Every structure is written in C-alpha cells, then in structure tokens.
C-alpha cells in the first residue's frame, strides 16, 4: 500500500515532516491537584495528578524520595473497533510502566520524601501515538499540580514507510508494519529519556528518523511551554495584588 503519494502527501494530507494539530487544555478535572487534556489530531487523552500526598500503603513508603505511581486506562470507545478489554492487560501495564519511569526521571522526587504522587492517564480516543500523547498530558498535569521537575518531558513518534521518514504516525500508518520510534526528550537538558522502536531499520535511517522525532518533541515542547506560561500569567493576573 502507498502511504506517501508521489506528490509527497500522506493519507491524511500531511507532509512527511508535518505533525498533526496539537491542542492542550489545563484544569479539566475539578477535584484533581493537577490535570490536563492533550490532543494530537484525533488522539485525545486526559491526565490527572493527585498528590504529593501521604503514602496510602505504608509498606511502599520511600524514605528518601517520593513514590510515583501511574495507571493508564483506555476508554471502551477509544479505539476504532469497539473492544472490551479487562483492566490491567499487559499492554496497559507496560505503558503505565513506561509513563511512570519517564515521569519519575524528571520529577525531583528527592524534594518530597515519604510522599506519593499518582498519575492517572485516561485515553478518550486512540489514533496512533497514544504513548506520546499520554506523556505530554502527564507533563502538563504535573506542572499544573505544582510538582517540582527538572524539565518538561515531551514526546513524539516518527516512523519509516515507503522509504520516507514520517513524523507523528496516525493509527493507519502505525499499523502498516513499518518502524515506529517513540521518543521522549528533556528539551532543556537535551537528553533522551524514552526510546522505543519496533521493526528494523538500518543505522543511517534510524538516525534520520530519530532526528525527525527529536524535532517533533521540540515542537511539542515549544507549544506546551506557551500554554503553561499563558496559564501562569492568567492565574497571576486574575489573583491580583
């Protein structure tokens, strides 16, 4: 199948290096300490952060750092074909783990010993790149909760189809069988914190694809920072004094 037309357009009309429309909204769950909605094209996720709060299960308490927990859930209606999955299947568990590890790397956990931070990510619509969208949403929600972080993790995926590197794969491109590189970076420190790839690529191609994903992450970072800055300004001027 042809994923990139001779004119250089993808199935949804994007250029190979073009990202889908991204949109973020802060403060979508009333009772959470921090929350955010993140959309990449049709992919839509909500993240809610509770904490830092007292550790609920004393035996898990860490004396020198905060306990970070994460749960990833997909709504029944989130995928194209409706499917009923039991909670805690292997894929969800794996993604929960990936998100937890990625976020743990940027939260300054040593500043909040003996406390617990819960990150809940809920996928409302899945159309490729859910991992990336979840990490971006979690970053925003953590920043909204006022949790100190070294940097904002942002994530984006890139792939390789029809011998063209493609940025931000949607579901159809993702399931085409080509390589799919999900990358998470700390943009300020310029470090990679998450890197996952399925399928095989030559080293040179991989370099190109990864470079593309890094560009994508940076674009997401710019947007997220704008949103957060605007939000901070609004909170400050509304508060007055």
């Amino acid at each position, binding site marked *: 199948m042809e994923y990139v037309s001779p004119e250089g357009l993808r199935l949804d009309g994007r250029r190979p290096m073009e990202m889908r429309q991204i949109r973020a909204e802060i403060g979508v769950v009333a009772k959470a300490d921090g*929350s955010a909605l993140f959309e990449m094209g049709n992919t839509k996720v909500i993240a809610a952060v509770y904490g830092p709060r007292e550790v609920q299960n004393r035996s898990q308490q860490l004396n020198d750092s905060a306990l970070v927990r994460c749960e990833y859930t997909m*709504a029944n*209606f989130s995928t194209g074909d409706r499917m009923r999955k039991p909670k805690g299947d292997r894929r969800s568990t794996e993604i929960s783990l990936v998100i937890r590890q990625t976020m743990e790397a940027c939260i300054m956990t040593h500043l909040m010993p003996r406390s617990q931070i819960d990150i809940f990510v*809920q996928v*409302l619509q899945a159309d490729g790149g859910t991992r990336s969208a979840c990490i971006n949403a979690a970053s925003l929600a953590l920043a909204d909760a006022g949790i100190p972080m070294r940097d904002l993790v942002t994530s984006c995926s890139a792939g390789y189809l029809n011998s063209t590197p493609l940025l931000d794969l949607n579901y159809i491109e993702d399931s085409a069988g080509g390589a799919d590189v999900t990358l998470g970076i700390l943009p300020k420190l310029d470090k990679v914190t998450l890197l996952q790839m399925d399928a095989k690529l030559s080293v040179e191609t991989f370099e190109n694809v990864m470079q593309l994903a890094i560009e994508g992450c940076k674009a997401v970072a710019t947007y997220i920072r704008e949103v957060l800055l605007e939000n901070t300004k609004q909170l400050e001027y509304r508060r007055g004094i």
Partner: protein
Amino acid sequence: MVGLSIGEKHFIQGGIAQDLRSDGRKRLTTRPIYVETGVISQANGSARVRMGATDVIASVKAELGRPNALQPDKGKVVVNVDCSPTAAPMFEGRGGEELSAELSVALQCCLLGGKSGSGAGIDLSSLVVVEGKICWDLYIDGLVVSSDGNLLDALGAAIKAALSNTGIPKVNVAAGASGDEQPEVDVSDEEFLQFDTSRVPVIVTLTKVGRHYIVDATSEEESQMSSAVSISINRQGHICGLTKRGGAGLDPSIILDMISVAKTVSEQLINTLDSHIAAAEAGEEES
C-alpha cells in the same frame, strides 16, 4: 468516600429539612447542566455532560450483527459504564468495578427494560436491517471523568444527548439473497439516519435524606442518604424503569409520592436537556 464531621452532617440534614441546601438550592432544584456533543469523533454519537463537578462522557457505537434467534425482529443494545481513576484515586485498579457494575446495571434497566426489551426507552425494532439476519448492535459506553454525586442522572442525560447525536449509516441490502444465506450489505458513508430520541427517557434520582428527598445530590449529600430511588421517565410521562438503592426501607406510599415528584422534575429536565442538546448540536455544526 467523603468523611463528614457531626456538625457538617447536621448542617446538611438541616438544610434539606429547611429546603435550603448547602449550595443554596431547594430540594427539587438541579445544578446547572452543561452539554457538549460530538466529543468523540470516532463514535457514531457522543456527548459530554457536566453537572457541577460531575463530568461524564457517553458514546454510542453501532456495529452490524445478527439478531438474537429468540427475537429476530429486534436489535441489541449494550450499556456499559467505566469509572476512570482520574475521577478519584479510589477507582484505581479494580477499585471502580463495583460502582461501574452498579451503574451499568441501573442504566441497562432504566433504558432497556427487561430481557424482552418491552419496556425499552430505545425502540429496538428500529435497529433491524433484515429480520432475523442483520441488525445494528448499539454499544453505549459511559465514562465517569470526574465525580461529584448524581452519576446516574448525568450518565442518563449524556446517553440521551449521545443518542440524539448519533447517525446510523444507511444500509443497502443486496437483493436476491434468500434462505439461510447472509445477505450482502453495503454500508453508506454519506447517508445517515438520525436516531429517534423522542422516547428515550431521562433518569431522575431522588435521594432520601432524613424525612425528605432531594434531586441532583452532591457526593456530600449522597453520603447522608438513607436510600435513593432512580426513576426513568420519558417525554410521554411513562415510567421506563426504576431502581432503588440504599439499605433503608421505604413506605410504599412514599414511593408513589416520589414517582409523581420525579415526573414533574423530569419534565423540566427533558426541556432543559433538549434545549441544551439543540444548542450543542448547533454549536457543533458551526465550528
């Protein structure tokens, strides 16, 4: 669960007795309701409903399937509700399952009636494409994103809004298939049939606190309830389903009284909901 001190409990109970609740509402006043439709673009129909801090999403997906052999002239509808852990950390893992199951069953019974589907608020026979062979299966999924009491009514309203937002593709059945063969069908991408929602009921839950009952209880008020009766009523004023929760017993005369109160409340609710749905649909088309 919400823990309240004796003083707070006393205050809430007193407020209900004096017809002035903690947020200034009367016993039978509902919170402002906010409806958004078409939030899930991959579904056939979807809606998000907010009442105070309660926030739910409902989506409708239609899939072609085979009717049940016992009821060849009826389609199938499945209602399922999930509580997202974003709403409260206690829904984490399997924590929300009990509540989800309770809500799913209550909705199933309020919207679909019994097994026969006779009391259904949704007209099941309209879902049949070819009798005995092809029908639409409607999968109605609810998701609780944020919870502050009265989840059942909010989910009911969201499902009603989602159903009015639902377009079911038109199906052309290839002629000539006969006997036991499964006829070939052609699902249209362009033509959609609007779902008839005039008979879909709304759910009104009356929560009994002390000697009085209230509508649209917040989670604080729900923690003080002795029992709650959820009544689903459609525009024609027919009762489509009824469930009672909570431990305390109710006097039969009180139940009848509650039903008549629910009927008046439901009329207002249907009117506000319809106008909100119409406004949301108009807004969606604009954008």
